[in-house]
């Protein structure tokens, strides 16, 4: 009996009138969990009942706690007939199941009915008493934390990033069961909501089990999706990245710049190491070879392939969630305050060396043994590492790489759903890898063995993996999966960014990964002399890493751009030059990625949202014929989307794309492709050449004229864009640059139509990098139109920027005002004589108009940036296109931008102070003489931080808060306005980003994952489709906010609307919509409020040397 769930129903308010005669309601509440139901008394004749019930107690095991939602139903008592349901509240109690999240859920919840929407509110208190029962047969995974955030959550530190986890569960869709014919729409909707809630609970629990098996304690970048396969069933699938996270202590979370005192403390134990002689071990010992020859453990490849974890294996071998922490205790206080840059400077050692720990016998004896064993190895290797300082790291590097590679390869899928990484994690980026496959859906016969769906995904992932390998990469980051379903055809897509990772974080499932880190640099540290402090020893990350032989000196600002593949044996034709930043390594001319811009990247100017949009008609067909025609179209679409992206990128004078997301949507008679990404100019990559137009009929004079006119227009646009996005790269001497001679043979042609021979498809030349100027060949009027459409993308109005990544490159001085929104449009395409061209134009206009209308709506926030702009396209019916956009508008301070541009050093420091935990400061690029300037830097930074908290910005912040409403302002001017002082509703911010500008997240309260269905049979009366969906989305927001507030939170970060399936039948006056949203509930504190907390800058300033290493590297 591992848990007791306690629920108290306090009161209701604003209930609907259920009794027409009295205009009142006799309400009571049913509280259901699993198969147990409790009821409150009837509170007669009131719309604001005060039940004040006793505590209803459910004694349940924790497996049930994880799977089941708490179900609260409000009913109207009727003496003579059946009681009428008013509505329901589903509460996911998962956040109460792990210690660091919420402890109680208490607050007002909207009472929701799938037919009527929100009908009043109910006040509920929920608590869980978990009994510790460490030896129980383990089917549950209570205690594993889940985060939607695709980076290491702000108040945590990644000890180890273990890797990919996936799972899927299937069931029959209640909507398609026979019983659905005889039950009411309400009953059917509720059955569906409940089932999906149960399935996602089960899925999360199963994922949690895998996490525990991998010795992790958290899933980051958790993405759960539903596939509504219609007749063939309902699939709920999830992917994520398993990590071992360490909570940063409050002090360091609040005062990230001054964690040095605690660090000094933690270093003492190492001084008093019981085996001092290990420190003196020589630079190189035979042991090191052993290290590399250890064969990696296979324990994880076993379960990652099957979606059903073999539970019978786990009970004895898997440690309790506290297990790893117990082992950690001697060192964990030490580690909790470790600063990222220090880790960066650490040498990684192979996880494979720690194999004994992977064995299923987790007994203290074995553990101890393995620890000491590890130490020796580590010391040996690190000694060697320091010996190979400088340029001699070659063989070591190779070894290291091999070993990393093998460590990753032994995992079935070395994938990471993260898009932002701890500094130094990303070594090289190869490029985007993606795979799609078209499948015919068939009925899932046995829901307990969803093998086909599993096999489908396994196939795709395998493909992704091999693509990555072809790019010379052993891992895929920014990985995501998606589906598009139309009738019985399903397109499965996966994409990510091939990358080479610094294996330091990837120690295979062992806690010693971190221990090892500490030890690995510690000896070096002491051998140099502890009195000097780390600053002397690790003056810069570059030196330390080369010192330890991780990589050749790769400057942090450009290292990730350097090609990971072999120059002489390139996977595809590419145009390479020496890096424009360090001049040491080769870089490609263009870089596409699915991740966020690494914080350390050196960017010139600002970024912008770039979209490629494409429609392709296809014949209506059945089953296999349909699937075949879709498969045939896909490569054309991919190619064209890629070409469009490349053209638009060049048109903006930029050379890299981040956050690339290509969505291909299948409808009955067409396919749509929408790619969104954020274009930037990376300083490390060469300046992109322009776009050159070539005509096909050279002897026609007017034609020539036309061409040259277009060419001029294009050139003008490029020039204008460079100015707009402030792209002014420094002039470079020619000789460094390679030989950028355009090769006419390598011209890429725009594919016009399906009639194009398929031979060409097989030789798709995706590398437009061969030539300096990108050549567009115009061979017919269609191509002409394409060039025109290229030029029609209007830049955002002045004062607006937009991107689909977390932050806008080039803007750092955010003010706290944010506005998250969802906009949905459904458009009917004329059904007469549709051609690909008119379709393309319509689709393009639809997207452009939508963006325009967003800019117009948010004009009062200028200057502002639309961040994380996320478009999703659906084709709900024959001629209908649905586009949903979710994004957040964030204001920023224009004046500060100007200042920052003048003084880049200041700018980066501002950045540092707004994003303290990231520790992105790479002073190398900023200070010509890092050694000299370093001691002064930290102090300066602290001062900077202090002024930014107390000085003008705070005042500006206050001012900007007030100006949120032009209306309020207007009224306030001439009349005194009494505010609604009795307002009890707390404000909950929502954002698709992982952070809140000007605020510090102090606590993660748990994941929010909600699924709602809304249906109406009186569509006209509810204001038509727009009225219906507007109300529904507002209701979804309200329910999300209510849940967050009840958890004690004041914001949702990494919010995402994963699904919005809208169906209408205007003839029947009916509509139905399904929405699935998720995010992380958090508590944040404004930085302006933080300054109230006792800050002791004196202690910080007084220890500049020790904090110097922290802050500056």
């Amino acid at each position: 009996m591992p848990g007791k769930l306690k629920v108290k129903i306090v009161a209701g308010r604003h209930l609907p009138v259920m009794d027409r005669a009295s205009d009142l309601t006799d309400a009571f509440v049913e509280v259901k969990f699993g198969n147990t139901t409790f009821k409150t008394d009837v509170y007669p004749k009131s719309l604001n009942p005060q039940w004040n019930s006793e505590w209803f107690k459910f004694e349940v095991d924790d497996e049930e706690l994880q799977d089941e939602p708490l179900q609260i139903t409000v009913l109207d008592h009727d003496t003579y007939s059946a009681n009428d349901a008013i509505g329901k509240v589903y509460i996911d109690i998962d956040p109460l199941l792990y210690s660091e999240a919420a402890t109680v859920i208490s607050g007002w919840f909207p009472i929701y009915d799938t037919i009527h929407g929100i009908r009043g509110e109910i006040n509920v208190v929920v608590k869980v008493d978990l009994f510790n029962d460490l030896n129980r047969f383990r089917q549950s995974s209570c205690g594993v934390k889940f985060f939607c955030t695709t980076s290491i959550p702000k108040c945590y530190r990644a000890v180890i990033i273990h890797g990919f986890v996936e799972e899927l569960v299937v069931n029959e869709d209640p909507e398609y069961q026979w019983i659905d014919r005889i039950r009411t729409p309400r009953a059917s909707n509720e059955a569906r909501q409940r089932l999906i809630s149960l399935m996602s609970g089960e899925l999360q629990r199963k994922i949690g089990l895998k996490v525990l098996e991998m010795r992790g304690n958290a899933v980051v970048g958790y993405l759960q999706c539903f596939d509504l396969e219609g007749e063939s069933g309902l699939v709920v699938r999830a992917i994520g990245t398993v990590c071992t996270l360490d909570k940063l202590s409050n002090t360091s979370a609040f005062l990230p710049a001054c964690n040095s005192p605690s660090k000094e403390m933690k270093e003492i134990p190492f001084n008093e190491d019981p085996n001092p002689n290990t420190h003196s071990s020589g630079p190189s010992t035979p042991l090191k070879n052993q290290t590399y020859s250890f064969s990696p453990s296979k324990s994880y490849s076993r379960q990652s392939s099957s979606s059903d974890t073999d539970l019978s294996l786990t009970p004895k071998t898997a440690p309790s969630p506290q297990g790893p922490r117990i082992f950690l205790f001697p060192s964990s206080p030490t580690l909790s305050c470790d600063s990222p840059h220090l880790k960066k400077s650490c040498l990684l050692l192979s996880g494979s060396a720690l194999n004994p720990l992977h064995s299923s016998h987790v007994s203290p004896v074995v553990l101890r043994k393995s620890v000491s064993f590890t130490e020796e190895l580590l010391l040996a290797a690190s000694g060697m590492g320091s010996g190979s300082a400088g340029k001699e790291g070659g063989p070591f590097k190779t070894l290291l790489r091999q070993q990393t590679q093998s460590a990753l390869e032994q995992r079935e899928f070395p994938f990471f759903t993260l898009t932002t990484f701890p500094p130094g994690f990303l070594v090289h980026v190869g490029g985007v890898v993606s795979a799609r496959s078209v499948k015919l859906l068939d009925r899932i016969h046995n829901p307990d063995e969803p093998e086909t769906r599993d096999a489908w995904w396994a196939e795709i992932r395998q493909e992704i993996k091999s693509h990555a390998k072809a790019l010379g990469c052993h891992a895929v980051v920014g990985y995501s999966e998606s589906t598009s379903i139309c009738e019985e055809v399903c397109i499965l897509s996966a994409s990510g960014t091939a990358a080479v990772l610094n294996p330091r974080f990837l120690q295979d499932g062992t806690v010693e990964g971190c221990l090892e880190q500490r030890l690995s640099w510690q000896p070096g540290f002491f051998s140099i002399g502890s009195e000097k402090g780390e600053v002397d020893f690790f003056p810069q990350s570059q030196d330390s890493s080369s010192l330890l032989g991780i990589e050749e000196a790769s400057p942090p600002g450009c290292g990730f751009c350097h090609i990971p593949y072999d120059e002489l044996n390139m996977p595809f034709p590419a145009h390479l030059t020496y890096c424009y930043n360090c001049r040491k390594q080769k870089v490609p001319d263009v870089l596409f990625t699915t991740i966020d811009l690494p914080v350390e990247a050196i960017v010139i100017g600002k970024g912008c949202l770039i979209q490629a949009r494409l429609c392709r008609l296809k014949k209506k067909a059945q089953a296999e014929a349909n699937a075949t025609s879709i498969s045939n179209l896909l490569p054309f679409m991919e190619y064209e989307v890629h070409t469009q992206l490349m053209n638009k990128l060049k048109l903006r004078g930029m050379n890299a794309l981040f956050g690339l997301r290509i969505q291909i949507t299948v409808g009955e008679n067409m396919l749509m492709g929408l790619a969104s990404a954020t274009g930037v100019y990376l300083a490390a990559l060469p300046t992109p050449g322009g776009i050159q137009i070539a005509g096909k009929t050279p002897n026609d004079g007017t034609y020539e004229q036309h061409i040259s006119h277009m060419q001029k227009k294009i050139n003008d646009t490029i020039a204008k864009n460079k100015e707009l996005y402030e792209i002014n790269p420094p002039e470079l001497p020619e000789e460094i640059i390679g030989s950028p001679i355009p090769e006419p043979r390598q011209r890429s042609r725009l594919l016009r139509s399906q009639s194009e021979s398929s031979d060409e498809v097989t030789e798709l030349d995706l590398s437009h990098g061969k030539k300096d100027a990108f050549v567009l060949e115009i061979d017919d009027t269609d191509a002409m139109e394409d060039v025109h459409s290229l030029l029609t993308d209007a830049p955002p109005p002045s004062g607006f920027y937009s991107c689909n990544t977390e932050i806008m490159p080039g803007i750092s001085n955010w003010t706290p005002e944010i506005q998250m929104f969802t906009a949905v449009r459904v458009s009917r395409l004329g059904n007469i004589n549709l051609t690909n061209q008119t379709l393309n134009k319509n689709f393009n206009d639809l997207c452009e108009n939508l963006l325009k209308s967003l800019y117009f709506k948010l004009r009062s926030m200028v200057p502002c940036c639309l961040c994380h702009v996320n478009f999703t396209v659906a084709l709900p019916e024959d001629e209908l296109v649905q586009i949903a956009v979710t994004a957040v508008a964030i204001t920023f301070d224009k004046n500060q931008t100007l200042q920052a541009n003048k003084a880049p050093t200041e700018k980066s420091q501002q950045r540092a102070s707004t994003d303290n935990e990231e520790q992105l400061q790479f002073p190398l690029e900023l200070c010509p003489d890092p050694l000299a300037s370093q001691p002064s830097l930290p102090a300066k930074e602290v001062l900077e931080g202090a002024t930014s908290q107390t000085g003008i910005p705070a005042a500006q912040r206050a001012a900007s808060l007030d100006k949120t409403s032009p209306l309020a302002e207007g009224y306030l001017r001439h009349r005194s306005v009494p505010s609604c002082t009795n307002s009890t509703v707390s404000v909950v911010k929502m954002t698709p980003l992982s952070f809140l500008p000007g605020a510090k997240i102090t606590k993660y309260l748990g994941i929010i994952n909600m699924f709602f269905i809304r249906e109406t049979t009186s569509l006209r009366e509810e204001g038509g489709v727009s009225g219906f969906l507007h109300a529904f989305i507002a209701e979804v927001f309200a329910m999300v906010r209510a849940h967050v507030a009840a958890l004690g939170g004041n914001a949702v970060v990494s919010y995402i609307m994963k699904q919005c399936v809208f169906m209408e039948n205007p003839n029947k006056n009916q509509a139905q919509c399904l929405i699935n949203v998720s995010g992380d509930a958090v508590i944040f504190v404004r930085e302006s409020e933080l300054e109230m907390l006792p800050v002791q800058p004196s202690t910080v300033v007084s220890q500049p040397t020790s904090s110097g290493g922290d802050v500056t590297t």
Partner: protein
Amino acid sequence: MTSDLDIFVGNTTLIDEEVYQLWLDGYTVSEAVSRRLRGGLLERSGTSVSVLQSDTRDHFRTFQMLERLLHSPPRLCQQLLFQIPPPRQAALIQGYYAFEPALARELLGKKLSKGTKKELDEVSARTGLSLRACRRQFDNFKRVFKAVEELKGPLAELIQQHFLLPPPLARDYAAIVFFANSRFETGKRRLQFLSFGDLAACAQHMMGHWTQGAMTPEAAEPDGDVPRSFLQDLKELKVLVSDKDLLDQHKSLVCSALRGKISVYNEMETNFKVLDPCRSDHWSLGDLRLFLGSYTTAPRALGGFRHQLLWERYMAGISACLLRMYHE
């Protein structure tokens, strides 16, 4: 390519002051769009008509959804559906309950019934307000009237509490409720020169002096009514007029008290206690004030007049009203 569905939902409800006013004024979406166009918005923001249409529709839809909540302002503050910062909530409420004095003047003293509502098209024609705006304002009057009808206590405060209105607006509503309750015939031709502001001020004076609330704050009867007992008592005061003897005495007392102080003494004697004549004789406001003061206190010296307290309470209200009404 037409957009069937086109919505924008912000986590913080987006409200455009200008569009809200257009909505309150009762314009349709297309009328509002053309008004916004005329305002030169297109040039300023560099956007297109279709964007403006979509934006206007969106706002109007939001306002329609909010309207239900605006009928009960405390609910607007408690509801969870729309996240609106409190100052903006207050502004929304205030905007919704603001009314055109001309319309209020027309409706003052009328029964707030369906019949009156049917006459709104005439009112709309006379005031130049759109019928929709008239209806909204009429419904507001009626809603406020209904809400406080049965309640006890000072009217303006009650309204402030229940509708979260700023004090001046709440006082105006109190006046409307007072007139609707007591059904004063403010529509008479002779009173046409009085504005809503005049009458509202009078109502406040009358409530201030005559109602139960004025005497005992925790009065048993609603404040919007002049208590029946008071009206009953007033009959007693008729002796001052009906009793020839008393009237003459009163008159002479007032005259003697004011002799030399009032410039229009001669006229006063003849025009005793009528407002219109004073106007035609060009009394100054100060003169009137003196006269009324004296008129009120004079009966103290009258033998056989036993209702001095009642008289003074009556006269305090009347005097204040007369003074207010006495303008060009």
